[in-house]
């Protein structure tokens, strides 16, 4: 589905990603772990097409398309979804209105007819149940005054509505209490199919108790330095990141 080869990226002249290689196939769940500042969120941003990053080397192919050539909105229309670490508050724009616009632009891009109001509402009702989100919340301004948990649930709700091929969840577990974590994980698990894939970016093994990954990668100093299965996450939880740092020695202390 997505094939990342030797990806190097700079921000303001500073190299953050130093040669990432990652292959994700349909039906797979990949977890990317790593200490603060290792480049996890940068990888998510680069894949989603955020401005301000300079790609100096490497390639990303998503479903036979050169992803790096596409604008952020085109990537979304092709089926990439980024659940934000910090969802943005947009006063005056309701989630409902915003999602309707987004869905119809995606459908238009794919040559499908726009959803009428009834069909849209019906779909919304079904997906709302999945993440236990309230109608009242969705008619309010997007994320404005939402609690941390509500914001993250709203992200998963949007993901459920847009049904992406590849979902990148950037620290969706951070700032969640146990109940919210369970709801979010339930949402993600229900959306999983053999035709889609997800990349979970996380600090903690905790989320992986709920969403079981097929692969766990450790990102350190801009590179994937270790790949394993779920047991690697357990090992990290027990031993911390120090042994990784020692193995791959960095001058910076983090």
């Amino acid at each position, binding site marked *: 589905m997505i094939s990342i080869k030797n990806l190097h990226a700079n921000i303001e002249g500073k190299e953050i990603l130093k040669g990432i290689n990652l292959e994700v196939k349909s039906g797979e769940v990949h977890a990317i772990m790593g200490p603060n500042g290792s480049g996890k969120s940068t990888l998510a941003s680069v894949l989603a097409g955020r401005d301000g990053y300079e790609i100096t080397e490497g390639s990303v192919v998503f479903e036979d398309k050169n992803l790096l050539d596409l604008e952020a*909105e085109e990537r*979304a229309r092709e089926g990439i979804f980024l659940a934000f670490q910090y969802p943005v508050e*947009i006063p*005056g724009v309701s989630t409902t209105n915003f999602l309707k616009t*987004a869905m119809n*632009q*995606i459908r238009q891009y794919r040559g499908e007819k726009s959803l009428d109001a009834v069909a849209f509402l019906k779909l919304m009702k079904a997906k709302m149940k999945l993440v236990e989100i309230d109608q009242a919340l969705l008619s309010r301004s997007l994320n404005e005054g939402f609690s941390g948990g509500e914001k993250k649930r709203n992200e998963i709700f949007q993901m459920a509505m*847009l049904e992406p091929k590849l979902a990148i969840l950037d620290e969706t577990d951070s700032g969640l209490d146990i109940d919210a974590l369970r709801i979010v994980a339930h949402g993600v698990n229900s959306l999983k199919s053999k035709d889609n894939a997800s990349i979970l970016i996380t600090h903690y093994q905790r989320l992986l108790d709920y969403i079981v990954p097929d692969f766990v990668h450790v990102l350190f100093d801009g590179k994937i330095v270790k790949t394993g299965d779920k047991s690697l996450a357990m090992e990290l939880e027990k031993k911390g990141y120090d042994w990784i740092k020692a193995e791959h020695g960095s001058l910076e202390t983090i």
Partner: protein
Amino acid sequence: MDISVINSIQEQFNKNEATYLAASLTHRKSALDFVLLHDLPDRKDEEYKYTPVNRILKKNFDFEKIVTSNSTHLNFKDHFYKLKGNHLVFLNGTYLPAQSIILNDICCQTEVDSKQTFKDVFDALNVAFCKNSLKIEVNEHYRPQPFFIYYFYDSEQGQVFGNPNIQITAHSNTRIQILEKTISTGTHPVFINKKVGVHVKANAQVNITKIQNYKKHIFQVYNLEVNQDAQSTFNSNVYSFAGGLIRNNLSINQLGEHCESHMHGLYLITGHSHVDNHTSVNHTQPNSYSNELYKGILDENARAVFNGKIFVRPEAQKTNAFQSNQNINLSDSASIHTKPQLEIWADDVKCSHGCTVGQMDEEALFYLRARGIGKNQAKALILIAFSEQSLEYIPFEFVKEEIDTLIRKRLIG
């Protein structure tokens, strides 16, 4: 002092002198003297620092080339809203009762009377030159149909100097709703110098909404002065979309207790449009309220000025006065000059003011794009949301829709 502009103003006056009624001539002459003495403001005048009217007119308008013909092929009624109400027509600044639809016997044409004072040079210029005056007076306990005032300008034959003059009195327990719109034809420059006086008596309510979507050869100064008695409410809504020069002076005097004033504005401008809103609220008695919110979106070489003054006099205890001016600047060459100004003499009041000038929120833009919304559409969504707060106090639903359409057309294309 600029000799040429003043001279041509004097000449124009002399040319018109014969057409004025003898009764008003002395008053007009003293108004002219005031103009000649003070001159039109320029950059050195603090209040017109960023809107040097003198200089702008000198560059774009020639008082010697004014045509006074009142014939036009404009069909006024075609432009009327299809609604029940008073439809009042002005052509090139002159009120035309015969062309208007008046449901209630409360509008009349009068000569400019000597009670009309002039505090500044534009007031005086208007008093000296206005052809007639429209008087709207609503008697106690009467709720008339809304007033739609259409200002037509026809500059096909030459330059037009229009001086609409309106005096509105809302007696106790009345409610007046006014919508102002300008329609123009022709390409010669037009200088509009509008003077409107409003007296809102006890328990009365007046609401004025203006749509200013002018062509680039239209230059306008609008003096709106409002006096409010106890328990009265005044709402002003002003939406500016384009114009060579738009200067709105809104001055509100709260003369009684428990007055309420709301001022909402939006300027959504591009090209070389210039919009300047100067407002002033004078709280003189206790327990009153004023709330002001002006929003601006500027693109290309547009220029906006905002100056909001709030005076809270020593007797005006328990005043609540709020003011906010928020701007989004989309271009490197657009500029905004904003200045909130509070002067408070009372010690038990709640007042706030603030102004912001920012750019498009890139984080918000990325968020919307990351959901598949195109860049332009995403920008429009954010800006529409930003501007819509200013539509809250429009009393007519169809006007809200009209303005909403103008906003969307401008932002989405």
